């Protein structure tokens, strides 16, 4: 591949993914300025590592892997809360976990499915982001990559350098934590009725 070809493929790939890179970076760092720095640094590092991109159709997972590695090496220290320290990668292999919706929480189901509740309104958008930001990073990242960015479990495993089975169990755990965070945020008026 000539430099000109590489540059053209690289530029197109970056431009195509810039919103996705920024969205993931924002939820990882939780700060606009840090997210922008993370994306810019990722792009610079990725160009420097263009020789490690073996197949052009793997561009997206390759680019996000660099984003994730850059976050870990240069940004994580600033964004990790003390309560997240207890979640190590080895602690989420519990395959028996089911999410709140699936563990027959009828109160939750009734509350959530009530059309008058306007659960899916603008306010919830903020609640949802707050709940997402509460999830420890190991689970948040997997939920973001799979549910928001549409990566497959295999691609997510490639991005994070973990086994696909771990992606699967982290998705379950991440969903459970997200739903519990939303459940905890429900308005006080709703709590009195359940």
């Amino acid at each position, binding site marked *: 591949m000539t430099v000109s070809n590489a540059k053209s493929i690289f530029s197109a790939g970056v431009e195509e993914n810039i919103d996705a890179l920024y*969205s993931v970076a924002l939820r990882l760092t939780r700060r606009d300025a840090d997210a922008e720095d993370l994306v810019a640094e990722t792009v610079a590092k990725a160009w420097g590592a263009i020789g490690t991109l073996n197949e052009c159709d793997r561009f997206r997972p390759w680019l996000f892997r660099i984003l994730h590695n850059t976050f870990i090496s240069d940004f994580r220290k600033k964004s990790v809360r003390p309560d997240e320290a207890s979640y190590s990668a080895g602690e989420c292999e519990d395959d028996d976990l089911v999410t709140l919706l699936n563990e027959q929480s009828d109160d939750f189901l009734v509350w959530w499915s009530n059309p008058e509740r306007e659960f899916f309104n603008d306010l919830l958008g903020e609640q949802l982001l707050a709940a997402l930001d509460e999830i420890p990073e190991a689970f948040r990242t997997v939920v973001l990559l799979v549910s928001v960015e549409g990566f497959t479990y295999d691609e997510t495993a490639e991005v994070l350098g973990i086994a696909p089975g771990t992606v699967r169990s982290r998705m379950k755990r991440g969903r459970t934590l997200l739903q519990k965070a939303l459940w905890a945020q429900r308005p006080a008026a709703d709590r009195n009725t359940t």
Partner: protein
Amino acid sequence: MKNDIGCLEAIEAFYAYLDGELEEPGSIADFEHHLEHCRSCFTRIELERMLNERMRRTARKESPQALRERVGQLLQHFGDDSNG
């Protein structure tokens, strides 16, 4: 041919189905057959799907103009060393 599966078996496949990771056509058909007959599982998966969709729309942000310009400038200068 579709097999009748119970809720426990359906729950096993629940998230793989939701995330498009249930690959075998037979498994997909069995799962969807179960959803057609089980209101509880159908409701749960619809709510999970709505939450996913809502999360996708909420967490996906447009990158700021300043960032696009910053990255654009980086891209412009990449390869300069090799060319020059």
